């Protein structure tokens, strides 16, 4: 079996995405959950870059040396524009959700998912 660079990269990215998903499911601490969401997002962005990366492609930057070389194997420049957008959106979601976790820890004095769920449930029953 030939372990080339691309295959190792692919396995690595799969592990990152899967560990993020595993963390979201298993972690009960909300901050840890959000961190694992970040890990998953990083993995997905890595996958985006990886999936459009050609074999032995070089970054799409035209310099003085390679300007006249027509047979250049440049990688596609579009995905990085897409990925930057999703990085920014991911950052916005992450920071907003951290604000909400902060509010939750202030009001419920807990950031454990199950405990907050029970407290919210109790509040709902008391009001109705």
């Amino acid at each position: 079996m030939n372990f080339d660079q691309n295959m190792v990269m692919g396995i690595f990215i799969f592990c990152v995405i899967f560990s993020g998903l595993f963390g979201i499911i298993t972690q009960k601490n909300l901050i840890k959950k959000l961190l694992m969401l970040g890990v998953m997002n990083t993995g997905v962005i890595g996958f985006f870059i990886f999936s459009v990366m050609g074999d032995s492609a070089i970054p799409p930057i035209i310099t003085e040396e390679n300007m006249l070389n027509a047979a250049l194997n440049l990688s596609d420049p579009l995905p990085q524009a897409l990925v930057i957008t999703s990085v920014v959106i991911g950052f916005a979601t992450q920071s907003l959700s951290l604000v909400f976790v902060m509010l939750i820890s202030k009001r419920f004095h807990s950031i454990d998912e199950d405990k907050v769920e029970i407290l919210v449930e109790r509040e709902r029953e008391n009001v109705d």
Partner: protein
Amino acid sequence: MSISPQLLQVFSLMQFAIPFLSLFFARKSKAIALFHVGSTLTIFLVLFFLKSDVVVSAVFGGWTKYNGIQIKLNVESVYFILSSSIVFISVLLYSESKKYDDKFFFLLELVYGTLLNLFISNDLFNIYVCLELISLISYLLISSKLRNRQIWASLKYMILSAVGFNFYLLGIAIIYRTQGTLNIDLLLSSGKINDMALIFILTAFLIKSGAFMFSMWLPSAHSESEIPVSAILSAVIVKAGIFCLIRTKFMFEHSFLREYILVIGVVSLFAGIVLALLQKDIKLILAFSTMSQVGYILTGLYAGALEYAFCHALFKSSLFLTMGLLYDKFKTRNLEKIYSSDRRIHFSVLILFSISFLSIMGIPFLAGFAEKKLIFDNLPYYFKYISIAAAFGTVAYLGRIFIVILSKTSFKGFEKADTLKYISISIPSFFIILTGVKNTLNITPSFFEAGYFLILIPAGLFLGLIAIKKLPGFFPSSLFNISNIVKIYVLVIAFFVAVYRLM
């Protein structure tokens, strides 16, 4: 009459420019929002009646559609823009009478502008950006009063849709690798799309669109947020996911996923009904009702979904705003407590409620009848019996609210301060009657189809009457736990992958 591509680009950019105008003129933000929504509604009503089969497309910045961002206005966009404009104008009038701050109106207007941009986007990545922006604003709208339960509902929605968007990005990465483009027009002609990508994209859209098992954020978000926000969530923001499914339905057409969309729709239809029957909170009943109505839309994805989504936006926004009137009067959302209260409400609430109640059941000459018939005519024959069973459930869970309102009605006690609220609710009701009459005259229903409600209403009301004094109030909170829902996503994706591999 024709629309030039330049005009469409200006329209798209204006949707972000006008909301920011209301940041600079904060005192006038309500007027600016009303002008924004009202003028858009007028333009599209004129467009709809003059030329309903309009198709205009434009690419930003002088690029070609191979490397630029394309926007496209067609029938689907016109339907969704019209329904969201009607809902927003009624919600804006409703929240005018409540004391919300300028920030709330700014957020409402920004989400409206983004929705219009989503409805004309013709690019998978543009859809992602618009959907994310809509979600970000709706997290803020859900938690607008910063109550404990609102914050929790909003955070839950945030984590689940973040997982969904990650799946979506995985899907479009695969599509970009295999097809080399994300433009929907080009994907239409680029051959069969990888099934793995379709699985991820379908999961993401179902998470946004309110299907059972996928959108478990829906009940808490709909029931805990403020009344205008619930109306918008149910009528428009859930429809954003539906719109994406309708725009990209050609991708699922020849895939094995097409049958599973039907199955998910039927499951969602009945699960929503069962869960709604078990509630005693009026907003939770309506939230689960949204889930079951989304089931209808999903089953009719290839015929009738567009028209039915339009009608659902009208009657569900009207229902939620009517519940606001009830809440103002009785100060409780508990149906049992309303039933045992000694206060009375004016009979115009009953009229407004019954228009949308009859419409959701599918009575002729109201919105929903012709559309339901369109959905059922294009489905296998046994589906007719399923739909009749579902109709009984719908009458049963809403009939309980109807009976409670009926028992509390009086002809006195009209409060002048509430006039604007009544006007705001009567706007969707007016359009329900208008579209209902227009569409019912165009079809020729069979005798049974036109008269099935004569059996349906008494039987459904009887079913609803059985348990009116002692409702279970069952809320399966373990089903709505973040970890468990993500487990469900992983299981569903694994199931689809297994089916795809075995075939």
